[in-house]
């Protein structure tokens, strides 16, 4: 029997509710309905009085969570889509993120953000906002790419004392399957070598890990190139040591992400690698992001807006031929 990425998220929440009386869930349509993506299916019935439907008030949802966290609770907030967190932006970056530094009292909230593009979702149900939150001091931003990570990192996120932006990728929800929820349980802040290689390193995270692996497999078959794929797992903190160790082996770096191209995770990765590992590089480090437009609605446009195995292969070929 196989389990999916969304199963992992649901299961982690069940375990958290079961094991930790401080945990409660709050979000739009997450109680009886089980959430827009069914990430909380059945939990309201299993845990009466601990799973709540919220009004359409993202700002207040986060404000509420901050207040609850200050009282010792561990709220998990579901944004219906990451894109809607734009209206909760202030409470996240100015209230939750600054609180520990300002007062010494941490704000342990976990904000689940269904992120990333899927066909036909369009400009307001497809966004990848990890870079926006990671820019701010005080937040932890995690971006699980596997079923096991979705599971263990959600559990770990809730245990962390800092506010966590949990970017779960909608494309992976039902598409990504595994035999179980168990994995290597790497801690947040540690990257993983998803695929080893020696000719180039692709540093990426979330759904793009799988596209990178596909591209790597294709290049291996086609021309014998061995591409290493590093899954950052969390973009803040960002495990530059694992990245540097990989680049030390391969000498070549492609930073890959699905978010908009200006700034973002790929720029941070490249900047850190060149700062500390300039001498390791045998070719200019490259970046591949989405195109610099809103995420288009039509599947044909969408498929060419985000990086694909084809465009990743193209970038890698360029990188390898330098």
């Amino acid at each position, binding site marked *: 029997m196989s389990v999916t990425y969304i199963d992992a998220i649901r299961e982690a929440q069940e375990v958290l509710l079961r094991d930790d009386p401080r945990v409660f869930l709050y979000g739009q349509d997450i109680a009886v309905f089980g959430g827009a993506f069914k990430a909380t299916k059945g939990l309201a019935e299993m845990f009466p009085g601990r799973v709540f439907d919220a009004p359409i008030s993202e700002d207040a949802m986060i404000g509420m969570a901050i207040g609850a966290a200050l009282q010792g609770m561990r709220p998990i907030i579901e944004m219906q889509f990451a894109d809607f967190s734009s209206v909760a932006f202030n409470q996240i970056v100015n209230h939750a993120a600054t609180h520990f530094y300002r007062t010494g009292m941490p704000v342990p909230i976990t904000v689940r953000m269904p992120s990333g593009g899927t066909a036909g979702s369009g*400009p307001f149900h497809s966004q990848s906002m990890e870079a926006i939150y990671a820019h701010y001091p005080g937040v932890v931003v995690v971006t699980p790419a596997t079923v096991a990570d979705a599971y263990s990192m959600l559990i770990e996120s809730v245990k962390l004392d800092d506010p966590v932006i949990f970017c779960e990728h909608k494309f992976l929800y039902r598409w990504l399957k595994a035999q179980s929820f168990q994995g290597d349980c790497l801690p947040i802040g540690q990257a993983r070598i998803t695929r080893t290689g020696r000719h180039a390193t692709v540093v990426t995270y979330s759904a793009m890990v799988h596209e990178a692996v596909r591209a790597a497999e294709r290049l291996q078959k086609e021309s014998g190139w061995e591409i290493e794929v590093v899954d950052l797992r969390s973009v803040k903190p960002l495990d530059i040591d694992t990245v540097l160790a990989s680049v030390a082996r391969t000498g070549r770096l492609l930073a890959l992400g699905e978010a908009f191209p200006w700034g973002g995770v790929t720029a941070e990765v490249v900047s850190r690698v060149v700062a500390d590992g300039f001498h390791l590089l045998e070719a200019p480090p490259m970046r591949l992001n989405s195109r610099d437009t809103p995420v288009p609605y039509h599947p044909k446009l969408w498929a060419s807006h985000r990086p694909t195995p084809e465009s990743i292969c193209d970038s890698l070929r360029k990188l390898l031929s330098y």
Partner: protein
Amino acid sequence: MYVAMIQARILESKLSSLYKAGKIVGGVYLGKGQEAVSAALGAVLIPGQDIYAPLIRDQAGRTAFGEPFIDCARAYLGSSLGPMRGRDGNVHRGKPGEGVLAMISHLGSAVAVVSGSLFAKRLKGELDGVVGATCVGDGATSTGAFHEGLNFAAVEKLPLVLVVTNNQFAYSTPTSRQYACADLVDRAVGYGVAGHSVDGTDFLACAAVIGDAVSRARAGEGPQMVVARLLRLTGHGEHDDAWYVPEVIKAGNYGRDCIDVAESQLLVHGIMSREEIEAIREQAAVDVQAAVAQAQQEPAPDPYKEVWQAWSTGRFYAEKE
């Protein structure tokens, strides 16, 4: 108005079938049960003059405001000739140059935009007799954007008509988890705007109350908030069977189908005959079918020809990229 209701219902049924047949990518959100409210507003707005920001359940209002079926069909079927050229979808379509705003998903955010359009018209000396209208659901009233936008309109005494269609649910969330006032119309006094209440299943009442609100706004009486009570007669989207709606609500007055009510009212008052109604239905079915057929033959957007430019300032591309 009734024609638009029927047309919208038939158009939307078609969209629903197409959705179930996998012919539409993306969501389908229908206005089933809300046609009277929606069309009552669309019908009294003046194309080319007024500002209209329809929301997800406003096919009837769009149709009443004059949207051709083909615009709708193109949007849902992903034709590159559609109003959004495949860049945005379905209910988001708009023609802002013609006064129909292109909504973003974030609920409540159109309230300030419509009001800003009216504010601009006043500055240009073109506000006389103009109104701006938008629709929100019970759920959207909980957004900060709704509050800020309405308050702004009130402070500026703009001719905004804000129709709140209280369909008892926001997705699956019942109104008891959305607000705690007795009736959303109780909010009007707190903003200093006029409040109107109407049974949204009652065709003639919708026409009267919404028509009156629009006239008042047009006459310079400031923002008008209309709260229409009814039940969404479909899922939140077509992926949702709305199992969470209790039978008792469906069986009650809210559960009435405004189209049935409209028909009997039209017949009783002798406004239309059964034959005329049948003729409208048949014609609508034919026209919808034609629009869908046309849109289905049209090309999808081509990523290789797509102009991937988010700035309108051309020189930023010419010079730098």
